[in-house]
């Protein structure tokens, strides 16, 4: 279990001056959890990860791992291992040498190291690669070595800094499944940093959405997707139509978010529809078709499956969505 209480981090740079990368963040990550820090670049997610790993020290606040206050401990004294974005494999060591490194540093006996290295390489399905050098491996294989190296000492927490960003799409999808499997099989808490919301939704038990050094919302993927608490979260997680609205009888401006897949389009037949709009763009996505509709000057997207006779740009259509698809957002 990781507990962050009021953690801030400020950096001083020569050209910009003092920059607050994290502002009073409090967060609780449970044991045996796949937890994801999600946000655009510069939101502070990597800084948060580096604070947990011990590569930075917090300006204020406390960090506890299993009731051990680690804020002042260097990385080598924390029960935490990291998979770096660039993998950071030691180029002068073999695959086995890389995986054994952490165990050697912990003073393990030679026979135990050999057994654990074998086990770790089997876990990431790289048996038979022990004698290779990192430069002789593909990106995906290097990624697996980095995972094996970080998992071999059985840390309490595994930190993953955008681990899949350097892989191509197909490999990325495959590794998403692999990471999920590894987390379940080892029972180690995974903390993953990513800017890819699809990746976060696919893998995580819980997600923390971050922006500008703040945690905006924490929750299970479905909970966040169904009930975003702000315009930013609604727009960043999946897609959202943000329609300006007003509370009846009061003057409060608010925004209504509607997911494109909940929007329905129909031929004009005079009754029932919420509004009429004009098709401005059509994008064929395979299974679905994405329409862009101009609705009183607002652009609304509708993701429609099997529309039968497709609409053409310029068509006037009836636009509708169920009331239950609406989420009112105040900020």
């Amino acid at each position: 279990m990781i507990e962050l209480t009021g953690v801030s981090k400020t950096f001083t740079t020569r050209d910009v001056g003092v920059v607050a990368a994290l502002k009073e963040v409090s967060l609780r990550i449970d044991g045996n959890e796949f937890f994801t820090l999600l946000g655009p670049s510069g939101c502070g997610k990597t800084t948060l990860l580096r604070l947990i790993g011990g590569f930075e020290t917090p300006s204020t606040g406390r960090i506890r791992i299993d009731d051990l206050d680690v804020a002042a401990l260097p990385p080598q004294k924390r029960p935490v291992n990291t998979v770096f974005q660039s993998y950071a494999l030691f180029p002068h060591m073999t695959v086995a040498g890389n995986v054994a490194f952490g165990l050697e540093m912990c003073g393990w006996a030679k026979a135990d190291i050999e057994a654990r290295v074998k086990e770790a390489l089997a876990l990431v399905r790289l048996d038979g690669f022990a004698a290779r050098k990192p430069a002789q491996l593909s990106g995906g294989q290097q990624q697996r070595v980095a995972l094996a190296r970080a998992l071999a000492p059985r840390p309490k927490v595994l930190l993953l800094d955008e681990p899949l960003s350097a892989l191509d799409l197909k490999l990325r999808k495959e590794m998403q499944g692999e990471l999920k499997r590894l987390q379940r099989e080892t029972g180690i808490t995974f903390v993953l940093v990513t800017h890819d919301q699809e990746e976060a939704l696919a893998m995580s038990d819980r997600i923390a959405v971050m922006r500008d050094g703040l945690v905006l919302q924490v929750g299970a993927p479905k909970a966040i997707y169904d009930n975003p608490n702000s315009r930013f979260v609604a727009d960043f997680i999946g897609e959202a139509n943000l329609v300006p609205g007003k509370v009846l009888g009061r003057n409060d401006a608010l925004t209504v978010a509607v997911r494109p897949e909940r929007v329905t389009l129909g031929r004009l037949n005079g009754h029932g529809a919420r509004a009429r709009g004009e098709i401005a763009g059509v994008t064929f996505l395979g299974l679905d078709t994405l329409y862009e509709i101009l609705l009183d000057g607002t652009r609304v997207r509708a993701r429609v499956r099997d529309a039968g006779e497709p609409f053409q740009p310029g068509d006037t259509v009836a636009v509708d969505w169920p009331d239950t698809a609406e989420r009112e957002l105040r900020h």
Partner: protein
Amino acid sequence: MGRQSTLLLVAPAVLAIGVFMLIPMFIALAYSFMTADPYGGVQAPLTFDAYIQFLYQRDFDDSLVFASDYILIIVRSIYLAVATTAICLVLGLPVAWYIVCQDAERRRLLLFFITLPFWINTLIRTYCWILILRDEGLANKLLRALGVVADPLPLLYNDGSILLGLVYTFLPFMVLPIYSTLERIDPRLIEAAYDLYASRVAVFRRVIWPLAKPGALAGATLVFAPALGSFLAPDLLGGGKKLLIGSLIQMQFTSSRNWPFGAALSIAITAVILLVMVLRSWRAPQREARA
């Protein structure tokens, strides 16, 4: 690309290597087998005299007696060159590491300082050490003013002052190649080592040093070879009391006017340096195989 244009394109490289490296080497080799002209230069006939003079002394009855004098000079020269290389390595590695750890602007400034001495003539810089080290020099004055010593310390004209001069002259040649290898080390590798429970010593021994070794080897070659043949520091700071190979060669071409012997001595130290390099490249693949 046609054969002719390929030849044309490689011509500058071949010419440079030939004119600046191979031809002078062959001239030296050829001279070493000729007879000395008493007014300098060489003349016919071909002879092994120069090499015989290196190992033997001609006795009064014209018989050859083995003489170790010149061998001892070479051994002493090698010893001083090895010591210079070792001291430069011990000093150069932390200096290079310190520079790498600075931000870009400070790094440029510090590298500029490292190369600054190149702009001043080596003779003048070596002479300055005499002014510092002599009995009435800066160092002794300071020591006496501080009351550390009553009489001036003999700082000049010994192996220590020669070593100081050699290290001073060749240190940049160690710092720069080490710096260039250290600069290329991904800082994440060091973070990864710490992350995997390595101590500071282990990070240096297991990650930084193995990756810096090519630079250290290049630096060692750049320091060892010229230090072995150097004559400025030994002459000026050693007082010319005990000859080193560099000074000896220099003398053969100037005051002694024995060009063949000078050439033979040059070939001898070239052979020593080649031997060191061959041993190095012969042992390197073995180490690679064990790792």
